[in-house]
């Protein structure tokens, strides 16, 4: 829903929600950012999103040796 953020109270207008980001995992394969959501007026925690950026996937390396 445009201009709204999903929370424990359902969809709220974005201006009522404060977002705080924390990097919770970061290695060569993936970076995860947790976005905690707070009611701007009261400071109540009202949920969180997780945004993961996969940087690099899995290799299947072929072992190629002389017979």
């Amino acid at each position, binding site marked *: 829903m445009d201009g709204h953020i999903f929370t*424990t109270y359902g969809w709220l207008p974005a201006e009522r929600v404060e977002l705080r980001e924390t990097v919770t995992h970061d290695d060569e394969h993936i970076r995860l950012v947790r976005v905690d959501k707070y009611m701007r007026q009261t400071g109540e925690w009202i949920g*969180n999103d997780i945004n993961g*950026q996969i940087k*690099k*996937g*899995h290799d299947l*390396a072929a072992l190629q040796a002389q017979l």
Partner: protein
Amino acid sequence: MANTQAISGAMKQAALGAVVDGKTLKAALYLASATTNGTNAAYTATGEVSGTNYSAGGVSVTNANTAGLTSTTAYWTPSASITFTTVTLATAFDAVMIYSTTDTNRNLGVFTFGSQTITAGTFTLTMPTNDSSTGLIRFA
């Protein structure tokens, strides 16, 4: 010039393409307490997360890419982010399995990340660049 032993890139691309090209794929999340790994031949409900707005079996994976080849490395990546929308998963989870419903739920790969919980939120996994260096699945 000298001869060089190698498994051909064409073979790797054909092998990877056989399991991903045109297949219907899904992604399922697993609890941090689960033991999901490469020995799982297929999707399993054992250890799968459960919670509000999460359906067993997970979500569809957009699969418009076909297996590519650069030099002798074959590669493939889903063509869009994998998203679990407005879910609440209160028990820690740390892995996603991508599997093929076209091929009796064949497990294509398990990908782990740090332990997470999510409340009234969206979990988005953005894919890497689809090339021979960073593709999600690569046969090197």
